Protein backbone atom coordinates (compact mmCIF):
# COMPACT_ATOMS: atom_id res chain seq x y z
CA UNK A 1 0.00 0.00 0.00
CA UNK A 2 1.84 3.00 -1.27
CA UNK A 3 -0.44 5.56 0.29
CA UNK A 4 0.22 4.17 3.74
CA UNK A 5 3.92 4.23 3.09
CA UNK A 6 3.65 7.81 1.94
CA UNK A 7 1.72 8.64 5.07
CA UNK A 8 4.35 6.98 7.24
CA UNK A 9 6.95 9.11 5.54
CA UNK A 10 4.96 12.24 6.23
CA UNK A 11 4.74 11.35 9.91
CA UNK A 12 8.48 10.83 9.96
CA UNK A 13 9.32 14.14 8.32
CA UNK A 14 6.93 15.84 10.74
CA UNK A 15 8.81 14.38 13.64
CA UNK A 16 12.15 15.47 12.19
CA UNK A 17 10.79 18.90 11.50
CA UNK A 18 9.60 19.24 15.05
CA UNK A 19 13.06 18.51 16.36
CA UNK A 20 14.63 21.05 14.05
CA UNK A 21 12.04 23.69 14.63
CA UNK A 22 13.40 26.69 16.42
CA UNK A 23 12.34 26.71 19.99
CA UNK A 24 11.11 29.90 21.56
CA UNK A 25 14.28 30.04 23.62
CA UNK A 26 16.49 29.91 20.53
CA UNK A 27 14.56 32.67 18.87
CA UNK A 28 15.02 34.76 22.00
CA UNK A 29 18.72 34.14 22.19
CA UNK A 30 19.16 35.18 18.58
CA UNK A 31 17.95 38.62 19.51
CA UNK A 32 21.03 40.07 21.24
CA UNK A 33 19.28 42.72 23.25
CA UNK A 34 16.76 40.21 24.54
CA UNK A 35 19.60 37.83 25.38
CA UNK A 36 21.31 40.62 27.30
CA UNK A 37 18.10 41.31 29.16
CA UNK A 38 17.67 37.67 29.95
CA UNK A 39 21.20 37.38 31.34
CA UNK A 40 20.78 40.44 33.56
CA UNK A 41 17.44 39.14 34.83
CA UNK A 42 19.03 35.79 35.52
CA UNK A 43 21.89 37.42 37.46
CA UNK A 44 19.40 39.52 39.35
CA UNK A 45 17.42 36.48 40.41
CA UNK A 46 20.62 34.74 41.54
CA UNK A 47 21.56 37.86 43.51
CA UNK A 48 18.18 38.00 45.18
CA UNK A 49 18.19 34.34 46.12
CA UNK A 50 21.77 34.25 47.39
CA UNK A 51 21.80 37.76 48.85
CA UNK A 52 23.23 36.66 52.22
CA UNK A 53 26.16 34.98 50.45
CA UNK A 54 26.85 37.82 48.05
CA UNK A 55 26.50 40.74 50.44
CA UNK A 56 29.79 41.66 52.08
CA UNK A 57 28.23 43.24 55.17
CA UNK A 58 25.00 43.16 57.08
CA UNK A 59 22.76 45.63 55.23
CA UNK A 60 21.26 47.09 58.38
CA UNK A 61 24.30 47.41 60.69
CA UNK A 62 24.98 51.04 61.29
CA UNK A 63 28.36 52.46 62.15
CA UNK A 64 28.28 56.22 62.22
CA UNK A 65 32.05 56.42 62.41
CA UNK A 66 32.22 54.99 58.92
CA UNK A 67 29.45 57.07 57.36
CA UNK A 68 29.60 58.32 53.79
CA UNK A 69 32.69 56.47 52.70
CA UNK A 70 33.62 56.54 49.00
CA UNK A 71 33.86 53.62 46.60
CA UNK A 72 36.20 50.89 47.83
CA UNK A 73 37.19 52.67 51.04
CA UNK A 74 37.86 50.42 54.03
CA UNK A 75 36.59 47.35 52.23
CA UNK A 76 33.21 48.85 51.40
CA UNK A 77 32.74 47.99 47.72
CA UNK A 78 30.45 50.89 46.88
CA UNK A 79 31.06 52.96 49.99
CA UNK A 80 28.66 53.57 52.87
CA UNK A 81 25.56 55.68 53.42
CA UNK A 82 24.88 58.37 55.98
CA UNK A 83 24.44 55.80 58.72
CA UNK A 84 27.55 53.89 57.78
CA UNK A 85 25.69 51.00 56.17
CA UNK A 86 27.33 49.21 53.27
CA UNK A 87 25.66 50.44 50.05
CA UNK A 88 26.62 47.33 48.06
CA UNK A 89 25.00 45.00 50.59
CA UNK A 90 21.92 47.17 50.78
CA UNK A 91 21.56 47.15 47.01
CA UNK A 92 22.02 43.37 46.97
CA UNK A 93 19.28 42.95 49.57
CA UNK A 94 17.19 45.61 47.85
CA UNK A 95 17.01 43.41 44.76
CA UNK A 96 14.90 41.01 46.80
CA UNK A 97 12.30 43.65 47.50
CA UNK A 98 12.26 44.83 43.91
CA UNK A 99 11.85 41.35 42.49
CA UNK A 100 9.30 40.19 45.02
CA UNK A 101 7.20 43.29 44.58
CA UNK A 102 7.63 43.31 40.83
CA UNK A 103 6.62 39.70 40.35
CA UNK A 104 4.01 39.38 43.08
CA UNK A 105 2.25 42.62 42.21
CA UNK A 106 2.09 41.69 38.55
CA UNK A 107 0.84 38.20 39.37
CA UNK A 108 -1.83 39.76 41.55
CA UNK A 109 -2.83 42.21 38.85
CA UNK A 110 -2.61 39.60 36.10
CA UNK A 111 -4.81 37.05 37.82
CA UNK A 112 -7.53 39.49 38.84
CA UNK A 113 -7.27 41.57 35.67
CA UNK A 114 -7.35 38.50 33.42
CA UNK A 115 -10.39 37.06 35.15
CA UNK A 116 -12.23 40.36 34.83
CA UNK A 117 -11.08 40.84 31.25
CA UNK A 118 -12.04 37.33 30.20
CA UNK A 119 -15.45 37.65 31.81
CA UNK A 120 -16.04 40.99 30.13
CA UNK A 121 -14.84 39.84 26.72
CA UNK A 122 -16.44 36.42 26.72
CA UNK A 123 -19.87 37.21 28.07
CA UNK A 124 -20.12 40.73 26.68
CA UNK A 125 -23.26 42.76 27.11
CA UNK A 126 -24.01 44.42 30.42
CA UNK A 127 -21.34 42.55 32.36
CA UNK A 128 -18.79 43.83 29.85
CA UNK A 129 -20.00 47.42 30.23
CA UNK A 130 -20.00 47.31 34.03
CA UNK A 131 -16.53 45.75 34.32
CA UNK A 132 -14.91 47.89 31.67
CA UNK A 133 -16.40 51.19 32.87
CA UNK A 134 -15.08 50.36 36.33
CA UNK A 135 -11.68 49.61 34.82
CA UNK A 136 -11.81 52.89 32.89
CA UNK A 137 -12.48 54.59 36.21
CA UNK A 138 -9.38 53.02 37.68
CA UNK A 139 -7.45 53.92 34.53
CA UNK A 140 -8.41 57.55 34.91
CA UNK A 141 -6.13 57.78 37.95
CA UNK A 142 -2.49 58.15 37.06
CA UNK A 143 -0.87 54.83 37.91
CA UNK A 144 1.40 56.19 40.63
CA UNK A 145 -1.29 58.39 42.14
CA UNK A 146 -3.56 55.37 42.43
CA UNK A 147 -0.79 53.38 44.11
CA UNK A 148 -0.07 56.27 46.50
CA UNK A 149 -3.75 56.55 47.39
CA UNK A 150 -3.97 52.83 48.04
CA UNK A 151 -0.77 52.90 50.13
CA UNK A 152 -2.19 55.68 52.25
CA UNK A 153 -5.34 53.68 52.79
CA UNK A 154 -3.64 50.33 53.37
CA UNK A 155 -0.63 51.59 55.34
CA UNK A 156 3.00 50.73 54.82
CA UNK A 157 4.47 47.27 54.51
CA UNK A 158 5.66 44.85 51.86
CA UNK A 159 2.32 43.04 51.43
CA UNK A 160 0.48 46.33 51.12
CA UNK A 161 2.92 47.58 48.50
CA UNK A 162 2.24 44.43 46.51
CA UNK A 163 -1.52 44.84 46.84
CA UNK A 164 -1.43 48.53 45.95
CA UNK A 165 0.71 48.07 42.84
CA UNK A 166 -1.23 44.93 41.98
CA UNK A 167 -4.53 46.78 42.01
CA UNK A 168 -3.05 49.55 39.93
CA UNK A 169 -2.09 46.84 37.40
CA UNK A 170 -5.55 45.29 37.18
CA UNK A 171 -7.17 47.59 34.59
CA UNK A 172 -4.27 47.21 32.16
CA UNK A 173 -4.54 43.43 32.21
CA UNK A 174 -8.31 43.53 32.01
CA UNK A 175 -8.09 45.60 28.85
CA UNK A 176 -5.40 43.51 27.17
CA UNK A 177 -7.15 40.25 27.98
CA UNK A 178 -10.58 41.49 26.96
CA UNK A 179 -9.28 42.65 23.60
CA UNK A 180 -7.61 39.32 23.03
CA UNK A 181 -10.63 37.32 24.11
CA UNK A 182 -12.92 39.27 21.80
CA UNK A 183 -10.81 38.03 18.91
CA UNK A 184 -10.31 34.47 20.07
CA UNK A 185 -13.92 33.80 20.99
CA UNK A 186 -14.96 34.32 17.38
CA UNK A 187 -12.61 31.56 16.21
CA UNK A 188 -14.21 28.60 14.60
CA UNK A 189 -12.73 26.14 17.06
CA UNK A 190 -14.61 27.88 19.85
CA UNK A 191 -17.81 27.30 17.92
CA UNK A 192 -16.77 23.70 17.41
CA UNK A 193 -16.20 23.33 21.13
CA UNK A 194 -19.61 24.80 21.79
CA UNK A 195 -21.16 22.45 19.25
CA UNK A 196 -19.71 19.59 21.27
CA UNK A 197 -21.59 20.64 24.36
CA UNK A 198 -18.76 22.12 26.40
CA UNK A 199 -19.56 24.34 29.37
CA UNK A 200 -18.58 28.00 29.50
CA UNK A 201 -15.99 27.31 32.16
CA UNK A 202 -14.34 24.69 30.01
CA UNK A 203 -14.42 26.87 26.92
CA UNK A 204 -12.91 29.80 28.79
CA UNK A 205 -10.13 28.03 30.65
CA UNK A 206 -9.25 25.37 28.12
CA UNK A 207 -9.72 27.18 24.85
CA UNK A 208 -10.05 30.93 25.13
CA UNK A 209 -7.36 31.68 27.72
CA UNK A 210 -4.60 29.43 26.33
CA UNK A 211 -5.06 31.05 22.95
CA UNK A 212 -4.88 34.52 24.46
CA UNK A 213 -1.77 33.80 26.47
CA UNK A 214 1.01 35.22 24.31
CA UNK A 215 0.07 38.90 24.63
CA UNK A 216 -0.70 38.40 28.33
CA UNK A 217 2.79 37.04 28.92
CA UNK A 218 4.39 39.92 27.06
CA UNK A 219 2.28 42.48 28.86
CA UNK A 220 3.09 40.84 32.20
CA UNK A 221 6.82 40.98 31.50
CA UNK A 222 6.64 44.66 30.68
CA UNK A 223 4.48 45.24 33.74
CA UNK A 224 7.13 43.74 36.02
CA UNK A 225 9.41 46.58 34.95
CA UNK A 226 6.65 49.07 35.67
CA UNK A 227 5.95 47.53 39.05
CA UNK A 228 9.63 47.71 40.03
CA UNK A 229 9.67 51.40 39.17
CA UNK A 230 6.45 51.93 41.11
CA UNK A 231 7.87 50.20 44.15
CA UNK A 232 10.97 52.35 43.92
CA UNK A 233 8.83 55.44 43.54
CA UNK A 234 6.66 54.57 46.53
CA UNK A 235 9.74 53.84 48.65
CA UNK A 236 11.29 57.07 47.43
CA UNK A 237 8.23 58.91 48.67
CA UNK A 238 8.45 57.07 51.97
CA UNK A 239 5.31 55.05 51.31
CA UNK A 240 6.99 51.76 50.50
CA UNK A 241 8.54 49.13 52.72
CA UNK A 242 9.41 50.03 56.31
CA UNK A 243 12.62 52.07 56.67
CA UNK A 244 15.35 49.75 57.94
CA UNK A 245 14.61 47.27 55.16
CA UNK A 246 16.77 48.08 52.17
CA UNK A 247 14.95 48.95 48.98
CA UNK A 248 16.37 50.64 45.92
CA UNK A 249 13.83 53.41 46.18
CA UNK A 250 14.58 54.13 49.83
CA UNK A 251 18.34 54.08 49.24
CA UNK A 252 17.76 56.59 46.47
CA UNK A 253 15.64 58.70 48.78
CA UNK A 254 18.32 58.73 51.51
CA UNK A 255 20.91 59.43 48.83
CA UNK A 256 19.21 62.52 47.45
CA UNK A 257 20.11 64.43 50.63
CA UNK A 258 23.79 63.61 50.20
CA UNK A 259 24.18 64.08 46.47
CA UNK A 260 27.13 66.46 46.97
CA UNK A 261 28.77 64.78 49.96
CA UNK A 262 28.45 61.24 48.64
CA UNK A 263 26.78 60.72 45.25
CA UNK A 264 27.38 56.95 45.45
CA UNK A 265 24.17 56.25 47.36
CA UNK A 266 21.90 57.77 44.75
CA UNK A 267 24.02 56.76 41.78
CA UNK A 268 24.25 53.04 42.41
CA UNK A 269 20.71 52.51 43.61
CA UNK A 270 19.47 54.53 40.65
CA UNK A 271 21.68 52.54 38.30
CA UNK A 272 20.31 49.27 39.69
CA UNK A 273 16.77 50.40 38.94
CA UNK A 274 17.76 51.60 35.50
CA UNK A 275 19.57 48.44 34.46
CA UNK A 276 16.93 46.14 35.85
CA UNK A 277 14.02 47.93 34.23
CA UNK A 278 15.87 48.30 30.94
CA UNK A 279 16.75 44.61 30.87
CA UNK A 280 13.22 43.51 31.60
CA UNK A 281 11.90 45.77 28.88
CA UNK A 282 14.45 44.51 26.36
CA UNK A 283 13.57 40.96 27.28
CA UNK A 284 9.87 41.76 26.97
CA UNK A 285 10.42 43.24 23.51
CA UNK A 286 12.31 40.16 22.42
CA UNK A 287 9.64 37.93 23.87
CA UNK A 288 6.97 39.75 21.94
CA UNK A 289 8.88 39.36 18.70
CA UNK A 290 9.48 35.70 19.37
CA UNK A 291 5.87 35.00 20.29
CA UNK A 292 4.32 36.94 17.46
CA UNK A 293 4.05 34.66 14.45
CA UNK A 294 3.70 37.63 12.13
CA UNK A 295 7.22 38.72 13.03
CA UNK A 296 8.75 35.47 11.75
CA UNK A 297 11.35 36.19 9.13
Amino acid at each position, binding site marked *: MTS*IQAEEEIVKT*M*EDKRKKEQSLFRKLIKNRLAAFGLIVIFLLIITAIFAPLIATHDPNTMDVTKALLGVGEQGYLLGTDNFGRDIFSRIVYGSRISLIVGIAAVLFGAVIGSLLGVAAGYFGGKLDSVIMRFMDGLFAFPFILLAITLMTVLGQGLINVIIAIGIANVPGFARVVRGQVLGVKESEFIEVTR*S*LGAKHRRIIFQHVL*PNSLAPIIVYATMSVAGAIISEAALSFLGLGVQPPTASWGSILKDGKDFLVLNPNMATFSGLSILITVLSINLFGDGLRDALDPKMKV
Partner: protein
Amino acid sequence: MSDMLLKVENLEVQFRSGSTLTKAVNGVSFSLNRKENIGIVGESGSGKSVTATSLLRLIPDPPGKITGGKIIFEDKDLLKLSDKAMRKIRGNEISMIFQDPSTSLNPVYTVGNQIVESIETHQHLNRKEAKEKAVHMLELVGIPEARKRFSMYPHEFSGGMRQRVMIAIALACNPKLLIADEPTTALDVTVQAQILNLMKDLQHSIDTSIIMITHDLGVIWESCDKVLVMYAGNVVESGTVQEIHDNPLHPYTWGLLDSQITESVSSEEELSTIPGSPPDLSLDISGCPFAARCPFAEEICLEKTPEMIEAAEGHFTACHFQTKEHRLDRKEAKVDDRSNIKS
Protein backbone atom coordinates in the same frame (compact mmCIF):
# COMPACT_ATOMS: atom_id res chain seq x y z
CA MET B 1 -40.17 4.76 19.03
CA SER B 2 -41.23 6.42 15.84
CA ASP B 3 -39.01 6.56 12.85
CA MET B 4 -39.04 10.33 12.91
CA LEU B 5 -35.75 11.74 14.18
CA LEU B 6 -36.07 15.43 13.52
CA LYS B 7 -38.95 17.65 12.58
CA VAL B 8 -38.47 21.33 11.94
CA GLU B 9 -41.56 23.46 11.68
CA ASN B 10 -41.67 27.04 10.47
CA LEU B 11 -38.24 27.90 11.77
CA GLU B 12 -37.55 31.62 11.77
CA VAL B 13 -34.20 33.20 12.56
CA GLN B 14 -33.52 36.91 12.57
CA PHE B 15 -30.40 38.97 13.04
CA ARG B 16 -30.57 42.45 14.43
CA SER B 17 -27.78 44.92 13.90
CA GLY B 18 -28.58 48.43 14.94
CA SER B 19 -31.97 49.21 13.49
CA THR B 20 -31.82 46.75 10.61
CA LEU B 21 -33.49 43.41 11.03
CA THR B 22 -32.30 40.65 8.71
CA LYS B 23 -34.64 37.74 8.28
CA ALA B 24 -32.10 35.05 7.58
CA VAL B 25 -34.47 32.12 7.81
CA ASN B 26 -38.14 32.56 7.03
CA GLY B 27 -40.30 29.66 7.97
CA VAL B 28 -38.29 26.60 7.06
CA SER B 29 -39.95 23.23 7.61
CA PHE B 30 -38.64 19.76 6.97
CA SER B 31 -38.45 16.38 8.61
CA LEU B 32 -35.87 13.67 8.74
CA ASN B 33 -36.15 9.99 9.57
CA ARG B 34 -33.54 7.84 11.25
CA LYS B 35 -30.60 6.85 9.05
CA GLU B 36 -31.86 9.20 6.39
CA ASN B 37 -29.76 11.90 4.80
CA ILE B 38 -31.06 15.26 3.80
CA GLY B 39 -29.20 17.77 1.70
CA ILE B 40 -29.72 21.51 1.90
CA VAL B 41 -28.57 23.44 -1.17
CA GLY B 42 -28.62 27.09 -2.01
CA GLU B 43 -26.20 29.87 -2.79
CA SER B 44 -24.34 31.92 -0.20
CA GLY B 45 -26.68 33.80 2.08
CA SER B 46 -29.67 31.57 1.39
CA GLY B 47 -29.90 30.68 5.07
CA LYS B 48 -28.74 27.10 4.88
CA SER B 49 -25.93 27.42 7.40
CA VAL B 50 -28.09 29.49 9.74
CA THR B 51 -30.77 26.81 9.59
CA ALA B 52 -28.20 24.18 10.49
CA THR B 53 -26.63 26.11 13.34
CA SER B 54 -30.01 26.93 14.82
CA LEU B 55 -30.70 23.22 15.15
CA LEU B 56 -27.98 23.19 17.83
CA ARG B 57 -29.01 26.63 19.08
CA LEU B 58 -25.56 27.92 18.28
CA ILE B 59 -26.68 31.15 16.63
CA PRO B 60 -24.70 33.91 18.34
CA ASP B 61 -27.21 35.81 20.45
CA PRO B 62 -27.04 38.76 20.16
CA PRO B 63 -27.35 39.58 17.26
CA GLY B 64 -29.14 36.43 16.14
CA LYS B 65 -32.35 35.06 17.54
CA ILE B 66 -34.64 32.18 16.74
CA THR B 67 -37.91 34.03 16.59
CA GLY B 68 -40.33 31.29 15.77
CA GLY B 69 -40.98 27.68 14.96
CA LYS B 70 -40.29 24.34 16.50
CA ILE B 71 -37.39 21.95 16.35
CA ILE B 72 -38.59 18.55 17.47
CA PHE B 73 -35.71 16.13 17.98
CA GLU B 74 -37.02 12.71 18.96
CA ASP B 75 -39.69 13.87 21.41
CA LYS B 76 -38.12 17.06 22.67
CA ASP B 77 -38.61 20.57 21.39
CA LEU B 78 -35.01 21.81 21.35
CA LEU B 79 -36.12 25.41 21.50
CA LYS B 80 -37.72 24.80 24.90
CA LEU B 81 -34.80 22.99 26.53
CA SER B 82 -32.69 24.58 29.24
CA ASP B 83 -29.10 25.49 28.38
CA LYS B 84 -27.88 22.59 30.42
CA ALA B 85 -30.10 20.08 28.68
CA MET B 86 -29.07 21.57 25.35
CA ARG B 87 -25.40 21.03 26.19
CA LYS B 88 -26.14 17.38 26.75
CA ILE B 89 -27.53 17.17 23.23
CA ARG B 90 -24.68 19.00 21.56
CA GLY B 91 -21.88 16.68 20.54
CA ASN B 92 -23.67 13.75 22.11
CA GLU B 93 -26.85 13.34 20.12
CA ILE B 94 -26.35 15.99 17.47
CA SER B 95 -22.86 16.87 16.23
CA MET B 96 -21.62 19.25 13.66
CA ILE B 97 -18.77 19.31 11.18
CA PHE B 98 -17.74 22.74 10.04
CA GLN B 99 -16.61 24.10 6.76
CA ASP B 100 -13.00 25.00 7.33
CA PRO B 101 -10.94 22.30 9.01
CA SER B 102 -7.92 24.60 9.23
CA THR B 103 -9.59 26.78 11.83
CA SER B 104 -11.88 24.24 13.47
CA LEU B 105 -9.20 22.73 15.66
CA ASN B 106 -7.66 24.49 18.63
CA PRO B 107 -4.03 25.12 17.66
CA VAL B 108 -2.68 24.80 21.20
CA TYR B 109 -3.77 21.22 21.87
CA THR B 110 -2.88 17.95 20.22
CA VAL B 111 -5.63 16.46 18.10
CA GLY B 112 -5.86 13.48 20.44
CA ASN B 113 -6.50 15.80 23.32
CA GLN B 114 -9.40 17.39 21.48
CA ILE B 115 -11.04 14.07 20.71
CA VAL B 116 -10.58 13.01 24.33
CA GLU B 117 -12.19 16.25 25.44
CA SER B 118 -15.28 15.58 23.38
CA ILE B 119 -15.48 12.04 24.76
CA GLU B 120 -15.01 13.13 28.35
CA THR B 121 -17.72 15.75 28.08
CA HIS B 122 -20.41 13.18 27.49
CA GLN B 123 -19.15 9.77 28.49
CA HIS B 124 -18.00 8.53 31.85
CA LEU B 125 -14.70 7.06 30.83
CA ASN B 126 -11.40 7.45 32.61
CA ARG B 127 -8.45 9.07 30.87
CA LYS B 128 -7.00 5.85 29.59
CA GLU B 129 -10.26 4.52 28.20
CA ALA B 130 -11.00 7.86 26.60
CA LYS B 131 -7.58 7.82 24.99
CA GLU B 132 -8.10 4.32 23.65
CA LYS B 133 -11.43 5.36 22.25
CA ALA B 134 -9.86 8.45 20.66
CA VAL B 135 -7.15 6.38 18.99
CA HIS B 136 -9.83 4.01 17.80
CA MET B 137 -11.78 6.94 16.34
CA LEU B 138 -8.67 8.16 14.53
CA GLU B 139 -8.23 4.70 13.05
CA LEU B 140 -11.88 4.63 12.11
CA VAL B 141 -11.62 7.83 10.09
CA GLY B 142 -8.66 6.40 8.23
CA ILE B 143 -5.72 8.15 9.80
CA PRO B 144 -2.66 5.92 9.51
CA GLU B 145 -0.40 5.52 12.51
CA ALA B 146 -3.19 6.79 14.69
CA ARG B 147 -1.23 6.31 17.89
CA LYS B 148 1.56 8.60 16.72
CA ARG B 149 -0.84 11.05 15.16
CA PHE B 150 -2.73 11.22 18.44
CA SER B 151 -0.06 13.39 20.01
CA MET B 152 0.47 15.71 17.06
CA TYR B 153 -0.79 19.25 16.70
CA PRO B 154 -3.35 20.42 14.14
CA HIS B 155 -0.74 22.35 12.12
CA GLU B 156 1.03 19.09 11.44
CA PHE B 157 -1.99 17.75 9.58
CA SER B 158 -3.08 18.40 6.00
CA GLY B 159 -6.52 19.85 5.28
CA GLY B 160 -8.09 16.51 4.45
CA MET B 161 -6.55 14.88 7.51
CA ARG B 162 -7.83 17.69 9.69
CA GLN B 163 -11.33 17.20 8.36
CA ARG B 164 -10.99 13.50 9.18
CA VAL B 165 -10.05 14.50 12.72
CA MET B 166 -13.09 16.78 12.86
CA ILE B 167 -15.25 13.86 11.79
CA ALA B 168 -13.65 11.71 14.47
CA ILE B 169 -14.44 14.37 17.08
CA ALA B 170 -18.01 14.77 15.86
CA LEU B 171 -18.68 11.05 15.80
CA ALA B 172 -16.86 10.16 19.00
CA CYS B 173 -20.10 9.99 20.97
CA ASN B 174 -22.13 8.18 18.29
CA PRO B 175 -24.55 11.03 17.62
CA LYS B 176 -27.94 10.29 16.11
CA LEU B 177 -27.67 13.28 13.86
CA LEU B 178 -24.64 14.73 12.15
CA ILE B 179 -24.83 18.19 10.65
CA ALA B 180 -22.18 18.70 8.00
CA ASP B 181 -21.87 22.37 7.07
CA GLU B 182 -20.12 22.35 3.72
CA PRO B 183 -17.63 19.72 4.89
CA THR B 184 -15.80 19.56 1.59
CA THR B 185 -15.86 23.17 0.41
CA ALA B 186 -12.46 24.08 1.81
CA LEU B 187 -10.79 20.90 0.60
CA ASP B 188 -8.92 19.85 -2.49
CA VAL B 189 -11.10 18.29 -5.15
CA THR B 190 -9.15 15.05 -4.87
CA VAL B 191 -9.77 14.91 -1.16
CA GLN B 192 -13.44 15.85 -1.33
CA ALA B 193 -14.50 12.46 -2.66
CA GLN B 194 -12.47 10.68 0.02
CA ILE B 195 -14.16 12.63 2.79
CA LEU B 196 -17.62 12.03 1.35
CA ASN B 197 -16.95 8.32 1.02
CA LEU B 198 -15.65 8.23 4.55
CA MET B 199 -18.80 9.88 5.83
CA LYS B 200 -20.91 7.40 3.93
CA ASP B 201 -18.98 4.43 5.28
CA LEU B 202 -19.15 5.69 8.84
CA GLN B 203 -22.82 6.39 8.58
CA HIS B 204 -23.44 2.72 7.96
CA SER B 205 -21.32 1.63 10.87
CA ILE B 206 -22.76 3.99 13.49
CA ASP B 207 -26.31 4.52 12.21
CA THR B 208 -26.54 8.25 12.11
CA SER B 209 -28.60 10.65 10.04
CA ILE B 210 -26.81 13.39 8.18
CA ILE B 211 -27.85 16.89 7.25
CA MET B 212 -25.53 17.83 4.42
CA ILE B 213 -25.25 21.51 3.69
CA THR B 214 -23.60 22.36 0.42
CA HIS B 215 -23.88 24.38 -2.73
CA ASP B 216 -22.58 21.48 -4.77
CA LEU B 217 -25.51 19.52 -6.15
CA GLY B 218 -23.12 16.71 -7.08
CA VAL B 219 -22.53 16.09 -3.38
CA ILE B 220 -26.27 15.84 -2.82
CA TRP B 221 -26.84 13.30 -5.62
CA GLU B 222 -24.02 11.26 -4.17
CA SER B 223 -24.96 11.11 -0.55
CA CYS B 224 -28.53 12.16 0.23
CA ASP B 225 -32.03 10.77 0.24
CA LYS B 226 -33.91 14.05 0.37
CA VAL B 227 -33.15 17.56 -0.82
CA LEU B 228 -34.15 20.97 0.38
CA VAL B 229 -33.47 23.83 -2.00
CA MET B 230 -33.24 27.13 -0.16
CA TYR B 231 -33.38 30.63 -1.49
CA ALA B 232 -33.37 33.86 0.52
CA GLY B 233 -34.29 32.14 3.78
CA ASN B 234 -37.11 30.13 2.26
CA VAL B 235 -37.42 26.58 1.08
CA VAL B 236 -38.38 26.83 -2.58
CA GLU B 237 -38.36 23.16 -3.42
CA SER B 238 -38.11 19.90 -1.54
CA GLY B 239 -38.43 16.25 -2.35
CA THR B 240 -36.53 13.04 -2.79
CA VAL B 241 -33.19 13.12 -4.52
CA GLN B 242 -34.61 11.01 -7.31
CA GLU B 243 -37.47 13.43 -7.91
CA ILE B 244 -35.42 16.59 -7.77
CA HIS B 245 -32.72 15.11 -9.94
CA ASP B 246 -35.03 13.75 -12.62
CA ASN B 247 -37.81 16.24 -12.46
CA PRO B 248 -36.81 19.56 -10.90
CA LEU B 249 -39.63 22.07 -10.84
CA HIS B 250 -38.62 25.41 -9.38
CA PRO B 251 -36.95 27.88 -11.75
CA TYR B 252 -34.29 28.50 -9.10
CA THR B 253 -33.42 24.82 -8.98
CA TRP B 254 -33.16 24.89 -12.77
CA GLY B 255 -30.77 27.79 -12.44
CA LEU B 256 -28.65 25.86 -9.95
CA LEU B 257 -28.62 22.79 -12.16
CA ASP B 258 -27.69 24.79 -15.23
CA SER B 259 -24.85 26.45 -13.34
CA GLN B 260 -23.20 23.11 -12.67
CA ILE B 261 -20.12 22.42 -14.72
CA THR B 262 -20.57 19.11 -16.46
CA GLU B 263 -18.36 17.28 -18.89
CA SER B 264 -20.64 18.24 -21.73
CA VAL B 265 -19.78 21.91 -21.37
CA SER B 266 -17.08 22.68 -23.90
CA SER B 267 -14.41 25.20 -23.12
CA GLU B 268 -15.67 27.68 -25.71
CA GLU B 269 -19.16 27.74 -24.29
CA GLU B 270 -19.90 30.42 -21.75
CA LEU B 271 -20.73 29.00 -18.33
CA SER B 272 -24.30 29.41 -17.32
CA THR B 273 -25.15 31.60 -14.34
CA ILE B 274 -28.20 32.92 -12.59
CA PRO B 275 -28.15 36.65 -13.36
CA GLY B 276 -28.50 39.14 -10.54
CA SER B 277 -27.90 38.48 -6.85
CA PRO B 278 -30.03 37.30 -3.93
CA PRO B 279 -32.28 39.96 -2.39
CA ASP B 280 -31.30 41.97 0.66
CA LEU B 281 -32.93 40.09 3.50
CA SER B 282 -33.19 43.17 5.68
CA LEU B 283 -35.77 44.61 3.26
CA ASP B 284 -39.34 43.48 3.20
CA ILE B 285 -39.83 41.30 0.18
CA SER B 286 -43.30 41.15 -1.21
CA GLY B 287 -44.10 38.31 -3.50
CA CYS B 288 -41.75 35.54 -4.55
CA PRO B 289 -38.18 36.24 -3.37
CA PHE B 290 -36.82 34.83 -6.61
CA ALA B 291 -39.05 36.94 -8.87
CA ALA B 292 -36.41 39.54 -9.64
CA ARG B 293 -34.10 36.92 -11.13
CA CYS B 294 -36.67 34.53 -12.51
CA PRO B 295 -36.98 34.26 -16.30
CA PHE B 296 -40.64 33.26 -15.95
CA ALA B 297 -41.72 35.99 -13.58
CA GLU B 298 -45.04 37.73 -14.16
CA GLU B 299 -46.94 40.39 -12.26
CA ILE B 300 -48.39 37.92 -9.79
CA CYS B 301 -44.89 36.88 -8.69
CA LEU B 302 -44.19 40.38 -7.42
CA GLU B 303 -47.50 40.67 -5.63
CA LYS B 304 -48.19 37.32 -4.05
CA THR B 305 -45.84 35.02 -2.17
CA PRO B 306 -46.22 31.52 -3.55
CA GLU B 307 -47.17 28.76 -1.12
CA MET B 308 -45.40 25.44 -0.88
CA ILE B 309 -47.62 23.02 -2.73
CA GLU B 310 -47.30 19.39 -3.58
CA ALA B 311 -46.72 19.62 -7.29
CA ALA B 312 -45.97 15.94 -7.68
CA GLU B 313 -46.09 13.14 -5.18
CA GLY B 314 -43.66 13.84 -2.34
CA HIS B 315 -42.34 16.79 -4.25
CA PHE B 316 -43.07 20.26 -2.95
CA THR B 317 -42.31 23.55 -4.57
CA ALA B 318 -43.19 27.18 -4.12
CA CYS B 319 -43.97 28.61 -7.52
CA HIS B 320 -47.15 30.08 -8.91
CA PHE B 321 -46.76 28.32 -12.22
CA GLN B 322 -45.75 24.90 -11.04
CA THR B 323 -48.89 23.13 -9.94
CA LYS B 324 -50.37 19.76 -10.61
CA GLU B 325 -52.43 21.30 -13.40
CA HIS B 326 -49.92 23.64 -14.92
CA ARG B 327 -46.21 23.27 -15.70
CA LEU B 328 -43.57 25.60 -17.04
CA ASP B 329 -41.41 24.51 -19.92
CA ARG B 330 -37.85 24.43 -18.70
CA LYS B 331 -36.39 25.00 -22.15
CA GLU B 332 -37.80 28.49 -22.15
CA ALA B 333 -35.64 29.30 -19.17
CA LYS B 334 -32.70 29.95 -21.44
CA VAL B 335 -34.61 32.72 -23.20
CA ASP B 336 -34.12 36.04 -21.52
CA ASP B 337 -37.66 36.99 -20.81
CA ARG B 338 -37.20 39.54 -18.10
CA SER B 339 -38.20 42.57 -20.19
CA ASN B 340 -41.56 42.79 -18.49
CA ILE B 341 -40.06 42.90 -15.02
CA LYS B 342 -38.18 45.71 -13.39
CA SER B 343 -35.59 44.33 -11.04
